[in-house]
């Protein structure tokens, strides 16, 4: 049995604790820019990850396609039954027409939002392997005009997170569910102009694997405002100069009072599917709007 602690080792251990505390202390506050060795590392790994991430996603899609083929067989059998039954066919046509109209509406919405803002499209190249902080790396950086604290959304307008660090060719994006450094000013659309419910969206407490149903917490809603299940939550545009207002975050799933009973906490079901991300848009605010 070896002795774990000689006095020399004890000293080294204590010294390393102090060094750790110093390193964390130096980097804990948000920095304007990563230092050049950090930027170099992020870019170098980003390119390697980018080469791997897309093919893997394609393989995943292949599995999905197989499931789709199975679904198609079943559908085919159903359609053959329905071939003699004209009325059910007519109903199906109507359903398809509705779906088509909805998709067209979505397309116009996307056109509408792209008219409002300058969007930069981006591919995801990697995702944090740690369970305790949630962030992804995307393949656009300061060369494409991305800046720190810009909003990141999916095609259906759901907010994904904010840009945390920018290197020349890649950026790190903090997801809504991050438990370490997320804070976005948000408001609830509760049809009460005098008493708008503001709060801070601050990470998820239950999303430890990609399989859980994700709920994001919104804290600090004052007690005198009325918020209910099912109401929509959008960004308020108050906190960051680069963060536009009225980006859709999600729907309220439940409302509780916090432990001290001073404020309310709402759990939000995010609109964006944060479990599987591949194509995203960074929102560039036009200079005229940025105050």
């Amino acid at each position: 049995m070896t002795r774990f602690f000689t006095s020399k080792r004890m000293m080294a251990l204590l010294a390393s604790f102090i060094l750790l505390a110093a390193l964390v202390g130096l980097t804990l506050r948000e920095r304007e820019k990563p230092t050049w060795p950090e930027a170099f590392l992020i870019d170098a790994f980003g390119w390697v990850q980018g080469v791997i991430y897309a093919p893997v996603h394609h393989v995943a899609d292949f599995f999905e396609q197989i499931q789709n083929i199975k679904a198609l067989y079943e559908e085919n059998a159903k359609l053959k039954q329905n071939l003699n039954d004209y009325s059910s066919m007519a109903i199906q046509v109507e359903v398809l027409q509705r779906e088509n109209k909805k998709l067209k509406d979505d397309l116009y919405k996307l056109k509408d939002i792209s008219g409002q803002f300058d969007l930069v499209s981006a591919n995801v190249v990697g995702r944090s392997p740690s369970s305790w902080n949630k962030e992804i790396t995307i393949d656009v950086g300061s060369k494409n005009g991305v800046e720190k604290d810009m909003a990141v959304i999916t095609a259906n307008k759901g907010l994904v997170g904010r840009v945390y660090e920018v290197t020349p060719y890649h950026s790190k994006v903090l997801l809504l569910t991050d438990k370490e450094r997320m804070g976005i000013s948000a408001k609830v659309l509760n049809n009460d102009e005098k008493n708008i419910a503001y709060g801070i969206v601050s990470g998820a407490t239950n999303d430890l694997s990609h399989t859980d149903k994700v709920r994001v917490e919104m804290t600090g809603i004052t007690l005198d405002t009325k918020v209910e299940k099912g109401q929509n939550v959008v960004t308020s545009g108050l906190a960051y100069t680069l963060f536009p207002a009225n980006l859709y975050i999600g729907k309220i799933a439940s409302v509780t009072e916090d432990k001290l009973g001073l404020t309310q906490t709402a759990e939000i079901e995010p609109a964006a599917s944060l479990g599987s991300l591949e194509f995203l848009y960074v929102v560039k605010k036009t200079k005229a709007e940025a105050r």
Partner: protein
Amino acid sequence: MHPLLILLTLMGALVVQSTVLQVQPFSFIAPNLIVVFLLYVSMMRGSLTALYCGLLIGLIQDILFGTYLGLYAYTFATVGYFAGMTFRSYWSRQLVMVILIMLGYSFLAELTAYGLSRLFGYAHVDLMAAVTHTVRIMIWNGVFALLLYVPSVKLLATERGRSMAEESL
């Protein structure tokens, strides 16, 4: 195996962790490959090598995916160092013992990271949820430790330790 090659292998593990194991159907598999390989390094090469390797790969993970530096650098370094001590004191020629030590240190590594991020982060995760998640990772680590035992021991064996490795297989 040269120390630089060990570091490159760890970097490869980090890339696999952050790409392949994050995409939907594969994300069900949740091992921490970095910890598994680092523990094999500490078993075959001793505490100090594992400490330096853990420190470097942890720092790289912090830079790439962390919001501040030091969390994983510290976690991996301490885990590598103390695992090396444990392997040296109980170097049994039994696979069961090796895997058990692996499971224990996987659990400790994940929980250390959780504790530190509770200390410096501000959103709160319940301890029970964290422990449940950690146990899940621990089980996957055990599976991958078994799968990687033969190649890692072969790759990491030094001239002095080679005979011992072959005897233990």
